[in-house]
């Protein structure tokens, strides 16, 4: 009826145009029916007015007198003429302050979102308007199909889209049922709880979602109702008795059900008492039996004694009668005594064995008795908890409560009555373990290996039944029933009561509780890792033995079954379980349990001082080492492996390389000067030269005295290498340098990567260097001794006596034709000794000279004592005007419990904490700053400019700000930063005294003090921050985080650049409204011939993305990839040899993709 009325109204409507999908009418008719039925006036808000027709239809359709309000961002809606009293408000729905002012505080019964259809807007509107919905009201979102569209911030199952958000609201209905360990963040949980309290239902239609608000907030979880008496399938009493109190607390029972439960409880407890009584009787019977056997044993002893006496007497008689000589008599006497002793011993042994068996049985029974008593106490405790659950007192169920109380009294009475009533029963093996026969249990378990067991016994031992022997003797003696079940370890690890059989305990309780049968089988991990095993209910160890190992499953995270078999063909051939082999042989033989664990290395490093041979290395690591932060293998192992591969590849290509050398168009002559060092270290260096595959080199003692035959070599083909004595060259070093010269005959300086080598020849600490980095070179001599310099360039400087760091600095002032060979060609031997104070002094002098030559003055200090990496702090002679451009949304945020007005805080902290005062603030706002903020701007004399476009575009905002800047330098700054050091601006500005510098970025820290930005690299053309979440004082990779260094980009959150350069290259790219615009700017700066510098001494806190939720716009990503397609690899970060996910500079050889 209401649908018919709505359809009629809709098509009869002759006012402003209204536009709805056909199926919406039936949805609205259904959802609004109750409002019409009640006939009360309602208050409705529709977001998105368009032509206003929809509002008119609702005004006609809803009960007379209802208040219809439209809200739209377009001021044109104010001009719409309505034929009914309809209110229209012009505001951004997410501009809460303005919206609230215009809409008033009264809640709405109906809210319809037919606004921008952008997912972000829809979600934000729902979050902020849900509280404005009257209890019992409905919130309707139209045209949700738009949330599948990329252009409106949506997409199929795209996180953050409106449809995904509303799907998530369904989770709020289940908030009371979440497990305590559910993976949900605090923020998500808070929102789920908020909605869970109020959402009554969520209904999804085609393109529409309806959320109805509850009439009253749900403050406690729903309760379970239980009624009826017959339970043929599942027994609710059993469930109730074993469930934790929290789950039972809210249960409501019908009277009949509570009666049944009461009886069930009684039955169970009486049964427990009976078992207890039976056990006590069994123990008593066994005691009696033992006593009888002890008596029998005493009688036997007496009998033996009598027999012995008889033999002695008979011997004396024979001796007398036959008058044997003394010697013969002595021999006979000895024989007789020996026989007597043996006889006695055998008798005693037999009796001891029987006694021990009996004792073991008694102890076992006592243990079972103790367990049952404990179980009983537990049951009592559970029952007590159950009886005290508050909701049992709910009035219709009071009978149930009384019954339970009555039960308690009855049970206590029975318990008292049962104590003095032991009953002697016949004891049998089956009864002695309660319900399970341990022998049968073990036999069926597949965890008893008779052969293995017998091997642990003395060679001559013969046993009829090994399992019985294990139960009676072996377990107590610490013998193992199976190579993968360690009885002693298990008993010690889980504090078993004496007499408890470890294997029986494991089979009955241990496996199910996740206890481990040996130190290297991690039961819980196995079941968690292999869910199919867990779901099947199989015993995990048995599964591993029968199937898991063969299927390549692992017993713990550090043992690889497959790898172990691959590495040990003998084990695979013999079809031995890999873990079994490792435990009993492999570890002792130094066979590694996986590629990630080196037995030899671990023993050498951590077990050397103990008697490591007796300690299982993997066990040690799992039990102690992991916690202590020990390394399972040398961190250098990957590198060594990669070296091995490269050496093999190099050897394989040697014939081709020799051909190449013969065919080279340019055959450079390398003049090598070996400086300093002892005679031995010089010899080492010379030896490495003798292995060179490229033959044209000359070791020169004096720079200007070449042998005659070399005088003819073209000067342009001579290259100079200055090596410190002790440095070694890879045998491909000169060849690779010669190849580089042939590839680029114009090159003047070439350098290569290097590593360290110890006196055993083990290489480590590779330094995969960045390509030419002029600003990094002012922090440290990263080029080092691997520089190969065209003789023509080097000669004049060498004549002046320049060497080392000074020489490199001076050379790079003479030429920009600098190449980098991305190969380890040099090996340093002086790593431990190179940081001498003399060396540091030379370096400082070299840098100070550099400052003088380049017209700067400043202080040069090692960043750490005696460290050859330097902080060069420039004394600024000129302090140019810096225009600080801050785009802002004028937001307040909560940070660690304090409310912060980001813009105000940013301005205040800059003004109060910065020593650099020649600043011009330019604030780019959205036209919505509050009076306090405006006051602040006035106080600081800030220029303000308003960005008026509807779509967020930070690139446009920055360009807008820069357009009115008058400073020589621009400081592009987010409003969610706070400076940490007073001279943070000076430490940025100082780099602009070098004409080649185009952009300088700061060190940014998260609020917790860990690194957020210490440089940006490109990984497969995707920008990424290096070394996030490291401590503030992290040095980085070869001082990458602690020293000024070149990167391909720095973050735009705090970026300083030259105003003239910014304008010349067109500022930020406005096609990149949100993503990658800062990296794009840096790349264009590099393209223009300038460098990007990371300045670590300029430190700020960045509350990151407080102004706006971080998001990656895929269209912009595509644009960026296309725009920078030619950038295949980052010149400042070696993607092939350093980690890329995430880029932490850790050494890791990566697969090539292109």
């Amino acid at each position, binding site marked *: 009826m209401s649908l018919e009325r709505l359809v009629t109204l809709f098509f009869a409507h002759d006012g402003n145009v209204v536009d709805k999908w056909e199926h919406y009418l039936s949805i609205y008719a259904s959802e609004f029916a109750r409002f019409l039925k009640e006939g009360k006036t309602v208050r409705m808000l529709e977001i998105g007015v368009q032509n206003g027709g929809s509002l008119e239809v609702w005004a006609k359709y809803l009960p007379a007198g209802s208040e219809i309000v439209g809200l739209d961002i377009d001021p044109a809606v104010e001009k719409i003429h309505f034929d009914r009293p309809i209110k229209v408000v012009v505001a951004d729905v997410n501009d809460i302050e303005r919206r609230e002012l215009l809409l008033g505080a009264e809640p709405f019964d109906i809210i319809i979102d037919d606004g921008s259809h952008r997912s972000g807007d829809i979600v934000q509107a729902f979050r902020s308007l849900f509280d404005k919905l009257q209890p019992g009201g409905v919130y309707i979102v139209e045209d949700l199909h738009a949330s599948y569209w990329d252009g409106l911030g949506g997409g199929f199952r795209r996180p953050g889209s409106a449809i995904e958000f509303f799907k998530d609201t369904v989770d709020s209905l289940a908030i009371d049922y979440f497990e305590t360990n559910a993976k949900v963040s605090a923020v998500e949980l808070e929102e789920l709880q908020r909605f869970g309290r109020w959402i009554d239902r969520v209904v999804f239609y085609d393109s529409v979602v309806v959320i109805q608000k509850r009439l009253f907030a749900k403050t406690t979880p729903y309760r379970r109702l239980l009624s009826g008496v017959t339970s043929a399938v599942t027994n609710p009493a059993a469930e109730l008795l074993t469930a934790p109190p929290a789950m039972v607390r809210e249960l409501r029972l019908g009277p009949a059900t509570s009666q049944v439960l009461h009886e069930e409880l009684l039955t169970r407890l009486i049964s427990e008492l009976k078992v207890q009584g039976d056990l006590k009787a069994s123990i008593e019977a066994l005691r009696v039996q033992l006593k009888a056997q002890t008596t029998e044993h005493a009688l036997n002893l007496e009998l033996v004694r009598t027999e012995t006496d008889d033999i002695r007497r008979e011997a004396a008689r024979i001796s007398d009668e036959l008058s044997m000589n003394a010697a013969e008599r002595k021999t006979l006497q000895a024989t007789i005594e020996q026989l007597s002793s043996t006889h006695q011993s055998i008798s005693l042994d037999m009796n001891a064995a029987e006694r021990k068996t009996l004792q073991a049985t008694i102890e076992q029974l006592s243990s079972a008795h103790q367990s049952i008593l404990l179980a009983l106490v537990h049951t009592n405790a559970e029952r007590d908890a159950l009886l005290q659950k508050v909701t049992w007192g709910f009035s219709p169920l009071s009978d149930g409560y009384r019954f339970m109380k009555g039960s308690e009294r009855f049970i206590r009475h029975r318990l008292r009555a049962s104590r003095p009533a032991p009953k002697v029963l016949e004891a049998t093996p089956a009864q002695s373990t309660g319900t399970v026969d341990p022998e049968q249990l073990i036999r069926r378990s597949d965890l008893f290996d008779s052969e293995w067991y017998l091997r642990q016994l003395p060679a001559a031992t013969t046993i009829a039944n090994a399992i019985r022997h294990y139960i009676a003797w072996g377990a107590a003696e610490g013998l193992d029933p199976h190579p993968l079940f360690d009885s002693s370890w298990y008993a010690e690890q889980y504090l078993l009561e004496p007499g408890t059989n470890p294997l029986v305990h494991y089979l009955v309780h241990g496996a199910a509780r996740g206890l481990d049968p040996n130190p290297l089988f991690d039961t819980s991990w196995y079941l968690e890792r292999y869910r199919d095993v867990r779901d099947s209910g199989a015993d995990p160890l048995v599964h591993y033995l029968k199937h898991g190992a063969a299927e390549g499953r692992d017993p713990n995270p550090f043992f690889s079954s497959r790898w172990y078999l691959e590495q040990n063909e003998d084990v695979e051939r013999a079809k031995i379980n890999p873990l079994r082999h490792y435990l009993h042989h492999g570890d002792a033989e130094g066979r590694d349990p996986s590629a990630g664990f080196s037995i030899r290395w671990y023993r050498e490093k951590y077990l050397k001082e103990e008697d490591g041979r007796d300690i299982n290395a993997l066990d040690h690591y799992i039990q102690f080492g992991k916690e202590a932060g020990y390394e399972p293998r040398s961190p250098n192992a990957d590198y060594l492996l990669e070296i091995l591969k490269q050496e093999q590849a190099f050897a394989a290509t040697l014939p081709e390389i020799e051909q190449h050398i013969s065919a080279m168009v340019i055959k450079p002559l390398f003049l090598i000067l070996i400086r300093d060092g002892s005679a031995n270290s010089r010899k080492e260096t010379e030896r490495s030269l003798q292995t060179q595959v490229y033959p044209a080199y000359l070791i020169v003692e004096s720079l200007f005295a070449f042998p005659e035959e070399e005088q003819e070599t073209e000067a342009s083909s001579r290259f100079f290498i200055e090596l410190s004595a002790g440095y070694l060259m890879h045998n491909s070093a000169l060849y690779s340098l010669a*190849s580089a010269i042939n590839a680029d005959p114009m090159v003047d300086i070439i350098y290569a990567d290097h590593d360290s080598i110890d006196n055993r020849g083990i290489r480590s600490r590779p330094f995969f260097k960045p390509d030419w980095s002029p600003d990094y070179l002012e922090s440290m001599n990263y080029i080092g001794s691997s520089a190969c310099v065209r003789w023509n360039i080097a000669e004049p400087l060498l004549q002046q006596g320049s060497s080392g760091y000074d020489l490199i600095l001076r050379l790079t002032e003479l030429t920009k034709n600098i190449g980098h060979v991305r190969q380890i060609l040099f090996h340093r031997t002086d790593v431990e000794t190179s940081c001498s104070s003399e060396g540091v002094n030379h370096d400082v002098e070299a840098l100070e000279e550099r400052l003088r030559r380049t017209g700067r003055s400043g202080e040069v200090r090692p960043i750490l004592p005696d460290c050859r990496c330097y902080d060069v702090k420039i004394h600024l002679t000129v302090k140019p005007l810096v225009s600080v451009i801050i785009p802002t949304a004028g937001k307040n945020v909560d940070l660690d419990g304090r409310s912060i007005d980001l813009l105000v805080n940013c301005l205040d902290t800059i003004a109060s904490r910065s020593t650099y005062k020649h600043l011009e603030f330019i604030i780019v706002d959205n036209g919505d700053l509050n009076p306090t903020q405006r006051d602040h701007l006035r106080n600081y004399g800030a220029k303000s400019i308003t960005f008026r476009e509807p779509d967020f575009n930070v690139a446009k905002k920055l360009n807008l700000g820069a357009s009115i800047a008058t400073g020589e330098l621009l400081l592009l700054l987010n409003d969610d930063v706070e400076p940490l050091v007073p001279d943070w601006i000076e430490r940025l500005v100082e780099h602009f005294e070098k004409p080649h510098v185009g952009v300088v970025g700061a060190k940014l820290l998260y609020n917790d003090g860990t690194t957020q930005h210490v440089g940006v690299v490109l990984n497969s053309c995707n920008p990424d921050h290096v070394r996030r979440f490291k401590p503030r004082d992290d040095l980085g990779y070869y001082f990458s985080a602690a020293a000024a260094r070149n990167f391909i980009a720095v973050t735009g959150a705090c970026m300083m650049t030259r105003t003239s350069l910014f304008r010349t290259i067109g500022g930020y790219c406005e096609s990149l409204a949100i993503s990658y615009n800062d990296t794009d700017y840096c790349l264009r700066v590099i393209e223009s011939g300038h460098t990007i510098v990371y300045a670590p001494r300029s430190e700020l806190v960045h509350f990151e993305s407080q102004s706006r939720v971080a998001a990656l716009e895929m269209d912009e990503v595509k644009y960026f990839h296309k725009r920078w397609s030619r950038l295949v690899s980052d010149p400042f970060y070696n993607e092939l040899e350093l980690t890329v996910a995430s880029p932490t500079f850790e050494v890791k050889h990566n697969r090539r993709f292109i």
Partner: protein
Amino acid sequence: LARAHTPTLALVYLARGADESYLEKFNSFVRSYKMFNPGIAHKGVIIFKGFRDAKQLSEGMDAFSSLDFAPLHTLDLTFDIGAYLDAAKEIETERICFLNTNSEIASDHWLAKLSRNLDLKNVGLVGATGSFESLSILDQRIPRFPNVHLRSNAFMIERRSFVEMLSSCQIGNKNDAFFVESGPNSITRCIFRAGQSALIVGRDGRGYHPENWPRSFTFRQGDQSNLLVKDNVTRTFEQMPWKEKEEISAKTWGRYINSGALDLLPGAKA
């Protein structure tokens, strides 16, 4: 080195007027030819073909007016390779280096680097680019991946061998031209059958045998930094976004991009 004397050498550039933006391409070649020292004496020849009319031909020839190259006119019926064969029959030098219309030289001593590698014993063919790609999807007679072949955009060969190899070929359509480059009887395969090797020569002057082509950093590898001569295909690769580069690189080199070992290539080793 296998040779005691320096063989005579002709550089043949194919100037095809029917190509889009042909003048721009001619100018790029001329600019690069002047920029980089070839490093070896040679005779210059330009094949002019595919021009619409005399005026267009005249414009085309003007582009080369600053070079001392001899013109040679052929019909535009037999694709690039047919024109190369026509030229080879006319030229009397011992060796010829062929460059197609899209070629752009990228390194000093480029011609000398090619020539020195052709001097090497058991080397019958050298070029700036090569590939393992297979066009068997177009014609099943083309060997499947990895189909080792030097590309015909820039290569050097003994003139006599080239003429002998191609004299029995009918080059009437595009597929015939593909066959000469990467078919079952491609120039590369003919060289292998003759017990010789085909090398990619890099900017570094190294002649890479086929097992090392995937790590030569030339055609469709990384930033192609070792390319001796560029062409339209290498430029297209350069402009591809990373993901597309990855796909095309996989198509060209497959898993060999990481190993470089090519025991699986029968006949590829000299």
